[in-house]
């Protein structure tokens, strides 16, 4: 909880920076603040407090803290990556504040215990993202991205709100535990519109995690937004949306899983197929990564769909989010450096293995991790999903997952092949600024370390 307050405070502070002229100090302050938030988080974890706040609106239990930890860590790396991005912008502080407020929403999403907090969290996170997506004011595509994101996002929010209203109508409460109790007590005589509400919420959440067939906004928005904002969307926003998804469906609606698992299975299957085959056909790296993020959403949803309320499935989602987030940070960080000249196609990576061997290796490891090859983190992530789903009767999805994973390897390899096989016309070395290099090294090492010792992350939930 203190972490959430600190980040909110930082957001307000960032807005004051212009007036009180400490713009230069802002980045160090924000980084320190995130570290402090992380530390407080850790403290609450170690003491296993799990307190409820604000009349039971929000509760930072261990699950929430684990997800906030991932979000804060990713945000920390992201801010370092973004340091020179902010220097170029004239209205630096607005961007800082927007990102920080999005972060506040993300943290709320990990810890909500009330439907209103869920809705608030989603809105607080999304609205700054709409603005940030359109933040390249003179770029047509960036404007388009922001606009599209806003329309689609609002549409999903409306669904969510309608779903909440219907559920409230049936159960008479916004509190997720009370709703759970209601389901337990009225398992046979719930009104039809309650189920409609559940399905509407499911649709809205699928929008937010960009799972097929609700994914159409993602490629355009990812492509149009500034690269670093895309990085933020595919890591922080995604992790938060998944934390919320899991909290909502495994805790609140866990007892009526037969209503939604079937739909979710179809969503997973579509996400895996559409995303992987579409990604294989992309030339733009950002679009490809957008589709790749849809396919990873499919994988994570598989665990939720398995509806196994065990430590194993919790670990699976948390590990997956972490592996995916750090892999994405590495690849977007490198993508940012490589595409500075404006070419965002795969050809921008041509000959990177020679132009900057170090970045080539880091990118290779990130790609192998996203493709799920041992000894990277992505492999264990995939493995956890396989073991969780193996115990359910959705084993056919595993076969589909295997086939689409092989397709997935295709487009990740395309980048590797471009780096080591294709020749660059002009042999310009790609430079990376010191701090960014630090992030890329750190996330690459982390990818290998948690890939070699998954026990560090995977054994968090020992009850």
């Amino acid at each position, binding site marked *: 909880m203190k972490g959430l307050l600190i980040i909110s405070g930082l957001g307000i502070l960032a807005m004051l920076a212009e007036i009180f002229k400490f713009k230069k100090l802002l980045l160090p302050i924000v980084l320190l603040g995130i570290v402090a938030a992380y530390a407080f988080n850790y403290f609450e974890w170690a003491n296993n407090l799990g307190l409820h706040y604000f009349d039971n609106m929000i509760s930072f239990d261990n699950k929430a803290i684990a997800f906030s930890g991932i979000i804060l860590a990713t945000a920390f790396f992201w801010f370092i990556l973004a340091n020179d991005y902010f220097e170029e912008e004239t209205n630096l502080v607005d961007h800082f504040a927007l990102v920080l407020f999005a972060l506040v929403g993300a943290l709320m999403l990990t810890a909500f215990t009330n439907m209103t907090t869920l809705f608030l969290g989603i809105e607080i996170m999304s609205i700054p993202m709409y603005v940030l997506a359109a933040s390249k004011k003179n770029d047509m595509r960036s404007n388009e991205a922001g606009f599209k994101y806003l329309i689609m996002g609002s549409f999903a929010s409306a669904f969510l709100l309608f779903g909440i209203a219907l559920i409230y109508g049936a159960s008479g409460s916004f509190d997720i535990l009370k709703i759970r109790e209601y389901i337990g007590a009225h398992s046979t005589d719930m009104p039809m519109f309650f189920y409609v509400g559940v399905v509407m919420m499911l649709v809205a959440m699928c929008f937010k995690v960009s799972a097929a067939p609700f994914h159409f906004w993602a490629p355009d928005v990812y492509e149009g937004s500034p690269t670093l904002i895309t990085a933020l969307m595919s890591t922080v926003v995604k992790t938060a949306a998944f934390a919320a998804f899991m909290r909502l469906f495994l805790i609140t609606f866990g007892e009526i899983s037969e209503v939604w698992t079937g739909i979710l299975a179809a969503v997973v299957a579509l996400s895996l197929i559409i995303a992987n085959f579409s990604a294989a056909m992309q030339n733009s790296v950002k679009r490809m990564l957008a589709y790749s993020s849809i396919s990873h959403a499919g994988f994570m949803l598989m665990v939720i769909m398995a509806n196994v309320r065990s430590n194993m499935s919790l*670990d699976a989602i948390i590990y997956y989010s972490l592996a995916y987030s750090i892999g994405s940070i590495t690849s977007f960080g490198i993508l940012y450096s490589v595409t500075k000249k404006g070419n965002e196609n795969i050809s921008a990576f041509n000959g990177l*293995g020679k132009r900057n061997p170090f970045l080539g290796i880091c990118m290779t490891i990130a790609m*192998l991790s996203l*493709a799920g*090859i*041992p*000894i990277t983190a992505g*492999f264990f992530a995939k*493995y956890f999903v*396989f*073991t969780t789903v*193996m*115990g359910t009767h959705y084993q056919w999805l*595993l*076969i589909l997952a*295997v*086939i689409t*994973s*092989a397709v997935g*390897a*295709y487009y990740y*390899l395309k980048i*590797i*092949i471009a780096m*080591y*096989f*294709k020749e660059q016309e002009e042999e310009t070395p790609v430079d990376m600024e010191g701090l960014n290099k630090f992030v890329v090294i750190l996330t690459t090492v982390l990818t290998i370390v948690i890939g070699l*010792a*998954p*026990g560090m992350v*995977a*054994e968090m939930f*020992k009850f």
Partner: protein
Amino acid sequence: MLTVLLVGFPLLAALLVFFTRGTAARSLAMAASVIEFVISLIALYIFKHNPDSPLLSFNCVWVQSLGIHFSIALDGLSILMVLLTTFLVPLIILSSYSNNYSNSHNFYGLILIMQMALVGVFVAQDGFLFYVFWELALIPVYFICLMWGGENRGAITFKFFVYTLFGSLFMLVGFVYLYNHTNVDGLKSWAIQDLYNAGKSLNANQQGILFWLIFIAFAIKMPIFPFHTWQPDTYVNAPTQGTMLLSGIMLKMGTFGVIKWLLPIVPLGLEKWGGTAIGLSVIGIVYASCIAIVQKDFKRLIAYSSIAHVGLISAGILSANQQGIQGAIMQMLAHGVNVVGLFFIADILLQHTGTREIEKLGGIRSMNGNFAVLFLIVLLGAVALPLTNGFVGEFLLINGVFQYSGIIAAFAGLTIILGAVYMLRSYQTIMLGERKDSNITFGPLAGTEKAVLIIICVVVILFGVYPKPLNDIAEEATRTILMVMK
């Protein structure tokens, strides 16, 4: 502990090599691989005297909550495979002395990492660890082929990678399925023995599905017909050393996997589907032999001959009797050595004459008699003439398949006849007769080239005349496997 050294040493050496530059990298890699060979000889010595020596096994927890252990040990089958690996890698490195690769430190570093993964595959006693090494072995060889391969390497290596990854993922699903059925005092386990027990507790249908899930990964790696389409292009386009690694050692991962990680797990599945799989293997033998006969490129010819040989090995293993499996083990060793020799000869031909096309060459014997003799010895090993190393394995294999079914053995036996046809004919065209093109010259062999070929020839004859030491270990290992299957 010795086994840990076997796995860890190449990795350490590789890290060193990555930071060395120029020819020092090559010498360092060479020295490391020779030391590794010595270590494996020591392991063999210990194994001969005390197979249960604690020096040969190592076990520590990797991921507690998932029952994953870093558990490695040397048994009869493993030690033979490890010896094959550690014997071939120095030869492969030595064979590269006449090539000049750019960024050679990366090249040699990757070869050593590859060696680490291969040894790991052969010694793993934990299903998960096996899978990790299995996948790990793919990455260095992929980069070797991608960075130093031939003309169309991008598309070809890509096909190779995706194809094998595809198979491996099915194997992972199979293993996870198996793992979910293990039960050791209420906990799940990845230990090989527990996986064996879990596999046997399943009914015939489940075992049948499991058989295909796992077998497909091995079949792609070997490769068995109809999963072989990646192989000829990859072998031809890879740099010679990459081809040697792929055909000499990596192919054996597949056959090794079938012996150790498939047969004892799904004995009922084998009963149900073994016939089909043997059928595919035998189709592969005939099919690949026929295609080999009409090949123009010598390297491609060897690639197809390799499919034929591995088909016979696979048929022998799947017939699941003493002779079949023992023969397969012997043939894996022999084929590993011979095919490395043959690919090296193909490379020498290309280096000296500028072409590998059989029709363009001719009369090389008159230009370099020594080379002709060495080539002939390797070739005879490959066609399994008695008193060469190929003979023992091939004889046992045909014997084993015959016990399974006489008709299938008759077809499998075609490999010997057809093998002799394409091998001897290509030798005849390349080495004998008149020079076809006066531009093509063939000077004396370089020192390293000679050394590699002589070592291979010595092994071909030595283990052809006196196969007993290896055969004893193979026999014992087969007996253990068959015991576990019952």
